[in-house]
């Protein structure tokens, strides 16, 4: 079951505007196996959303965006042609960060769910309606009939996110991309949504690419995690390995800045992000790295597998840090 569902190879996305070019994603490679929950973590602006959007082809196809590399979904390269890619992306579903904004204000909830069944499965209106009602039950919405007749602006954020999940489930996807689904919600609702996602994951075995900036959620929810910084993956591996012995300075900094109940120690937050990359070494963490080695200034670090399935892009084995 768990052969490679989604394989991203050397994906890089850059946006040209009049003055200069910004590289949102630089040479990113990641694989998601069937039935696996993979976390993609990073600060805001690290390119995680751009990666997700490029997978499902939501990037605007104007001349200004340059996308290269390959995104194989069950062997098919999704980047080849937007239209064709979206057809087979019916196997992929996605939920977004701002649930209120991602539902059409002029249509009822029922209509927007029915639409998935009618478009994809060419169902009649009545059957689609019934399926929509029981999908709503699945995402444990109490009175689905009334909710189906209501409009998005009449629902709370949490409720909308449940509807979004319902819409995603309606497509019976093999891969669900969740782009920071809980960030816009307050903590109590966040827990309910995550519980719901986990419950659905266990029943339908859909692979989930979980994009977040909250390491706590990753620890609790994902099997495998990749940490992004400045459009590049700096460390990836099983969650247990990463949390037990983080190798990359950036990962260590992230883990140290998680407040833990009961621990009295002061947190040492990471130095501020200045932007920009060191001229000759393309290591993006260089300006903020606390364990700079001599090699760091000269060579670009490559992925090293320090333990099975645990890769890190850093010259860690040189031991002594210069600072």
């Amino acid at each position, binding site marked *: 079951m768990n052969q490679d569902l989604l394989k991203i190879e050397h994906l890089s996305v850059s946006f040209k505007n009049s003055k200069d070019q910004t590289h949102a994603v630089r040479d990113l490679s990641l694989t998601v196996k069937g039935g696996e929950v993979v976390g993609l973590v990073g600060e805001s602006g690290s390119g995680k959303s751009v990666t997700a959007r490029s997978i499902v082809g939501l990037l605007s196809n104007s001349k200004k965006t340059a996308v290269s590399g390959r995104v194989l979904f069950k062997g098919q390269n999704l980047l080849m042609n937007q239209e064709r890619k979206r057809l087979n*992306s*019916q196997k992929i579903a996605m939920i*977004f960060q*701002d649930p209120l904004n991602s*539902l*059409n*204000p002029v*249509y009822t909830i029922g209509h*927007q769910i029915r639409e998935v069944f009618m478009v994809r499965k060419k169902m009649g209106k009545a059957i689609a309606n019934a399926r929509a009602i029981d999908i709503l039950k699945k995402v444990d919405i109490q009175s689905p009939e009334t909710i189906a007749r209501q409009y998005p*602006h009449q629902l709370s954020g949490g409720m909308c996110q449940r509807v979004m999940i319902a819409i995603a489930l309606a497509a019976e996807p093999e891969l669900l991309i969740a782009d920071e689904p809980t960030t816009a919600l307050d903590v109590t609702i966040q827990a309910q949504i995550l519980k719901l996602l986990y419950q659905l994951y266990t029943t339908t075995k859909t692979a989930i690419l979980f994009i977040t900036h909250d390491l706590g959620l990753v620890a609790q929810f994902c099997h495998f995690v990749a940490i992004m910084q400045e459009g590049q993956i700096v460390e990836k591996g099983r969650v247990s390995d990463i949390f037990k012995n983080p190798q990359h300075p950036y990962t260590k900094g992230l883990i140290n800045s998680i407040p833990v109940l009961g621990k009295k120690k002061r947190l040492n937050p990471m130095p501020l992000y200045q932007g920009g990359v060191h001229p000759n070494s393309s290591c993006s963490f260089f300006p903020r790295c606390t364990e700079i080695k001599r090699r760091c200034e000269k060579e670009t670090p490559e992925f090293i597998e320090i333990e099975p399935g645990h890769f890190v892009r850093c010259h860690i084995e040189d031991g002594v840090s210069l600072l």
Partner: protein
Amino acid sequence: MKKVILKRIVSIPIILFVLSIMIFSLVLFLSPSERVAVFVSSSDAMQNVSLDELIKRYGLDQPFYVQYKNWLQGILTGKLGWSNSAGMPISEALALRIPATIELLLTGQLIVFFGGIFLGTIAAREHNRFSDHFIRISTTIGISLPEFVVSLFLLILFYVRFDLFPPGRLGLAATDVVYSDSFFNYTGLHLFDALLNNRFDVFADALRHLVLPSIAYSLGGLAATVRLMRSSLLENLSKGYVDTARIKGLSDKAVLNKHVRRNAMLPLITFTGMRVPVLLSGSVVVETIFDYPGMGLFIVTAAQGLDFPAIIAASLAVSIIIIISNLAVDVLYTILNPVIRLG
């Protein structure tokens, strides 16, 4: 929402009352002999009538409030009084003319509304490319054309040269049918009446006569609706629900037509509503050139002849049309926009 509509309806009589006083007070500026001129429509008529005798007969030299009182009594008892410039009771004149103007208004607004949506969508899709600029510049030129030169050119070209779209409201044969007893005028709008009486020849004839005036009528509004539709579309395209729709597997065209257009159209409705007063006053030029017997022409002849009962009755009628159309547009907007309806 209901409270707002109720307040608006209550304010209508007050507005109309103030309006009638405003117009009637213009009488103060005029000497009775100036007002009697309405009875003398041409220079030779001066010869066969003694104006002073007419002034006494029609009571034009009575004090202002007496004249206003008589007029007000007339209005309240449904008698709108007599229009000398049109030579018939005002109620009869309005019954003839209002449907004509409404019909022209509807067709003109339809062109502005759907033309705006169609061209606006193209302009938005071809964002900042050639046809976007072409549509915007050409429609902007559309506003800047002096109305009556354009109308006259349309008339000369499409009527005299090609005999495609004649002016006037109905052809000779169709007018006979409409005014014959077998034809029942439900609404006075020839298009609907023709359908209700299932006389498709009259329908075709009425439509043929409406083409040119409604084009001239809609020139002014098209640029604004195109611009509004374009910016509204661009704004909606950047919204989240578009991504959801695309993820659902809908093609680009389906996303645009089903989801985005319905949201983008909303501001267009309020805008088209706001254009009604502008259109009603612009109708004078179009009605004159295309010999279309509407309200504009009626009021202008009344105004030039200082036929006060007609001016007031007609202005009140036009104001009622405007207020009702504004109300209708607001109600339509709330129905189509659930956020406000159930807000």
